[in-house]
């Protein structure tokens, strides 16, 4: 075990994957010997050579097109998109290509070796274009897996699973936590199951569902609620596609109350999917409406970020409102 921050955990996963198989490639804008603007890929060129970890020209649709082709050839392609906000030029290659590659060919071909890494989220004074949480844009896409770790330990194990999973995986890294989140992480290889939610804390009064960096807000809110004697169960969804509705439903059948929180704007976010599914599965158990605690329906602003941010106080208020409904 070693103390690592989230970036180091990612870097360690990439390192292990590249050591494990010669067919693992890592690339993106500035990800070559420079190691990426966040340095997630640093050291990899020195270790594995400039043909295994390299810079791409500045073209996200090309990065994903190239990655799809490389994965279809049987390689493991790990493509970094510098910021989640810049993934949209690659939307067609991801949604119409990666996700449908196996199905449309009747399994003659697949891009299972593809992993897309991208930092997402706010809280870093990044304004419109360095703060978005675009996961819901992808969650409507059968064929894709979506994974979002909340801390270094999860990040490493999940990324290793994602890289070698036989399906294309979108792996979204909470950049606010890149350096802020540290913890004990095994130095060797280990994997964590995709598609499985993680009960971070057990409780009996109310369930909070979150993913990625937002789990921290859920925890802080639960701590505060505990002072009021409210006992929250916290579920980290971990994977948004396919997602583990059973674990959430089981929890809500126990607690009778659900608060879902996400960084992204409210409307048509993934919290809506969770609420829609759980009201159906747990209809007779619910004691109050499922609450969604989300960003406002505006672009992500710079100057009122503190107010816009979905902090623990907002989650806490939703918990209280649900308890006193």
């Amino acid at each position: 075990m070693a103390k690592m921050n989230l970036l180091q955990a990612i870097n360690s996963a990439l390192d292990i994957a590249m050591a494990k198989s010669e067919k693992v490639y890592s690339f993106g804008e500035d990800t070559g010997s420079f190691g990426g603007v966040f340095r997630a890929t640093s050291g990899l060129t020195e270790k594995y050579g400039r043909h295994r970890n390299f810079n791409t020209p500045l073209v996200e649709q090309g990065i994903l097109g190239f990655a799809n082709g490389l994965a279809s050839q049987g390689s493991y392609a790990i493509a970094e998109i510098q910021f989640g906000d810049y993934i949209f030029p690659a939307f067609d290659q991801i949604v119409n290509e990666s996700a449908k590659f196996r199905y449309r060919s009747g399994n003659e071909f697949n891009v299972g070796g593809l992993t897309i890494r991208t930092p997402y989220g706010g809280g870093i004074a990044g304004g419109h274009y360095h703060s978005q949480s675009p996961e819901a844009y992808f969650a409507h896409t059968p064929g894709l897996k979506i994974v979002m770790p909340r801390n270094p330990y999860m990040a490493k194990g999940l990324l290793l699973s994602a890289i070698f999973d036989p399906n294309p995986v979108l792996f979204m890294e909470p950049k606010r936590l890149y350096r802020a989140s540290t913890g004990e992480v095994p130095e060797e290889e280990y994997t964590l199951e995709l598609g499985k939610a993680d009960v971070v804390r057990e409780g009996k009064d109310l369930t909070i569902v979150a993913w990625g960096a937002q789990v921290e807000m859920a925890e802080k809110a639960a701590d505060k609620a505990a002072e009021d004697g409210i006992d929250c169960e916290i579920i980290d969804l971990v994977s948004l596609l396919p997602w583990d509705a059973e674990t959430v439903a089981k929890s809500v059948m126990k607690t009778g109350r659900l608060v879902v929180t996400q960084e992204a704007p409210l409307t048509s976010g993934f919290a809506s999917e969770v609420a829609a599914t759980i009201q159906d599965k747990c209809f007779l158990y619910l004691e109050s409406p499922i609450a969604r605690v989300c960003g406002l329906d505006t672009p992500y602003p710079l100057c009122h970020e503190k107010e816009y941010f979905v902090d623990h106080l907002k989650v806490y208020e939703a918990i209280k409102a649900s308890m006193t409904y």
Partner: protein
Amino acid sequence: MAKDKQHQLEIVTEPKFIDGSALKIPMLQILKEDGTLHKGAEAPKLDKELALKMFDTMQFIRILDERMIAAQRQGRISFYLSSLGEEAASIGSAAALDDGDMIMGQYREQGALAYRGFTVEQFMDQLFSNERDLGKGRQMPVHYGSAALNFMTIASPLATQIPQATGYAFGQKMDKTGNCTICYFGEGAASEGDFHAALNMAAVYKVPAIFFCRNNGYAISTPSQGEQYAGDGIAPRGVAYGMKTIRVDGNDILAVYQATQLARKLAVEEDEPVLIEGMSYRMAGHSTSDDPTGYRTREEEEEWRAKDPLARFQTYLIKKKWLTEKDAEEIFAEKKAAVLAALKKAEKVPAPHIDELINDVYDTPPKQLKEQLEQLKAHIRKYPEAYPKTASRIDGGEK
């Protein structure tokens, strides 16, 4: 003249704008329209067997296209898309490749696929979306694919396969396979951003890829010159990316064959990606959904009919005494019979089983998807008359 040190650029002190006229790219043509060789031109080395295989394939595709357009009109299949007039481009280039080379097509390269050995039955199974279709009936007709034949499954979104070809070729290079990837696309698709990404990346990474642009004058109704682009076609773009480039007469199978053969050498032996622009003409409508009389003249079509690649090659082969008129007629008749027989057989093969609906979304169906299928099947059992094709087979019943 002075040179700039950092950029190694020539320095000029008078402003001079340059434009497309600075770079006009000629067209390689070996066989004239009348099927004879240009004076002084040398035909590529091509033995009789190979030449006849190429001719054979051209004949087959010509008949397949004609018959399937008719089948669509009769309502036997939902859609078809022919390569009439462009057979030389895909067959001539495919013939210059190794069977281990990957082919990534747009949708009008049935010639390359047939050349690789896709059988007439396999064509029909796909066209009828039956349970023998390798694609499991999931895509529209003409979206063929075969892993065994290294022919990537066709998909409708245009140009997406071009950067994929760059990535595939990169993998081939790293694996030291000695193979390359050929990627076909239309001059219309070359307007997409993916084209730009693909060629630039290929030039930067020096991958063994051949980008073959079929410039057939139209993208559905949109004429290439002046509405798709203002420059001298697609070839100059290769030059701009610093990529080896050549333009050929796409209706001259000898020119196509020779250019592709040399391109393959550059790709495989020197890791030099190559752009080939094949000039041709889409003789039929864009697809069976299209009627070209709305946007072009009969005269224009007639002008191009005179350049027919099949007739041109046939004349050449006859002159060369590798073929007689009678041989050609026999091949034609034989192909026609095979197409008709396969068609009749394929339309009787049932559709894939409903259980296939959820396979291959992921490597294995997730729980939720299995539940969705079970719900659907329960629903069909409840209303068998509403889903007659499926209801009778849903629980393993007779096909």
